[in-house]
């Protein structure tokens, strides 16, 4: 983990309330897909944790949904401005655990880290298969970006306005050896129950520090107490108590 200033290169809407923020700065603290950053926002006391969607040697991409005062303030940030980040937080997805054909399941605003994961799996010579779930056509984002990776991509919508009607669990392919998932907790629970293999699930929690000091985001697992910010946000299926 490192603290640093990052320059805003773009901050554009992807849907009515989801935006993509591209930042230039030091990405050396990022060691795995599924890690997150903790963003300092003027006028708010606590930082706001946001998962890393993608990164390279020059900068990183964050995708966030405007849900409260923090993300609303972030939406008003203009290119050229700077953000104070704690970068490279959390464990992220362990690509070495993934089998050759691994399902990459994203739900709504849980989709962004799965994009960086899909790219990391491709780099590791593996074959990610994306299943992305949204509520409705208007809320879909990054479908084209996933398809541009050249990977099998299925989109579902709850109302059937685009892709396959229903939830992600209604359309999981038959042949896969492992899965990784990020999304709202009801989706994670449904995937946990529906999937036949082992997998990794990424969790969201209200955090204090984001780096393991305050015990604000603790959860109990079969492997003992864990801090979502430090020992997570990615947990193994086997350790989750559901």
């Amino acid at each position: 983990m490192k603290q640093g200033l990052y320059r805003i290169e773009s901050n554009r809407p992807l849907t009515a309330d989801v935006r993509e923020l591209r930042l230039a700065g030091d990405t050396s603290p990022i060691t795995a897909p599924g890690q997150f950053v903790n963003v300092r926002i003027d006028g708010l006391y606590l930082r706001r944790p946001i998962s890393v969607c993608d990164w390279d040697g020059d900068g990183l991409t964050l995708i966030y949904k405007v849900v409260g005062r923090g993300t609303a303030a972030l939406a008003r940030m203009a290119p050229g401005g700077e953000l104070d980040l704690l970068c490279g937080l959390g464990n992220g997805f362990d690509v070495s655990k993934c089998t050759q054909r691994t399902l990459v399941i994203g739900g709504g605003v849980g989709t962004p880290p799965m994009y960086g994961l899909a790219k990391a799996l491709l780099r590791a010579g593996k074959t990610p298969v994306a299943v992305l779930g949204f509520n409705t056509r208007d809320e879909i984002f990054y479908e084209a970006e996933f398809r541009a990776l050249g990977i099998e991509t299925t989109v579902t919508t709850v109302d059937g306005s685009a892709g396959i009607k229903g939830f992600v669990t209604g359309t999981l392919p038959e042949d896969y050896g492992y899965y990784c998932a990020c999304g709202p907790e009801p989706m994670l629970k449904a995937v946990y129950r529906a999937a036949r293999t082992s997998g990794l699930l990424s969790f969201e929690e209200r955090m204090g520090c984001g780096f393991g000091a305050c015990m604000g985001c603790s959860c109990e697992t079969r492997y003992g107490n864990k801090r979502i910010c430090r020992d997570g946000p990615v947990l193994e299926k086997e350790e989750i108590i559901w």
Partner: protein
Amino acid sequence: MVDTRVALSGITLDNPVIPASGTFGYGHEFAELYDINCLGAFSFKGTTRAPRFGNPTPRIAEAPAGMLNAVGLQNPGVEKVISEELPKLREVFRKPVMANVSGFSVEEYAETCALLDKEDQVGWLEVNISCPNVHGGGMSFGADPSAAAEVTRAVKAVTTKPVYMKLSPNVTDIAAIAKACEDAGADGVSLINTLLAMRIDLKRRKPLLANRTGGLSGPAVFPVAVRMVYQVYEAVSIPIIGMGGVSSAEDVIELMLAGASAVEVGAANLVDPFAARNIIEDLPRVMEQYGIDTLSEIIGGAHNG
């Protein structure tokens, strides 16, 4: 060259800055980021006799210029702290550490303190009789002078280390509680713990924290801390460790002028992991700015005249 040293019950600190319990774990997360030997000391995570998971989540909420927490004293229990955390701490911190202890009965406080008394690296015991986030314990001892005195006497009977009683601001007269601790033999007092608070989620129409209430900390509470340290300084002659929303070297000096011999930094560590180090590095410059050569000489300076 200014002199930033202060003394707490015969132990000299290089500077008065002490990360507060619950915001610094057992030191490891911060030792990965910087050499924590720059600290005056630090107060480790509130430790109880038995392991505790703490409260359900959400445990954290935003507040104007601050935050609420209701962690509920999550800790591995004193035996694991002694067998696992303290040996690891010795590798990264060569100064005395402040052992923060909580309990649910007078006997439990005494048992936990007796175990920590045998540990060489423990310089002081900071006895938390003011946690607002656990039921049936903690704060109830700190809300009543005779109960606070009883815990003080029980702990003093089992240790030779200096005992600092950590006091709650959620009382009508904190000076009376501090005086009761002093009369019962406390070597010092530390204040303030968090202020009991609540936030409500407008969408769910329910308290935001799973515990419903939590403790408010951060700059929002700093003026309350200054007022209470000032009042307690008038009432007791034992040293005071001041805390509550400290975020800058100026805040450290302000609390010392109110009467603090040393100052803890809490919530600031959570939003800026380098906060304590930055305050320490900034202190000489700010001392010079205000014409202070020897920091220990300003303790209680606001009471003169």
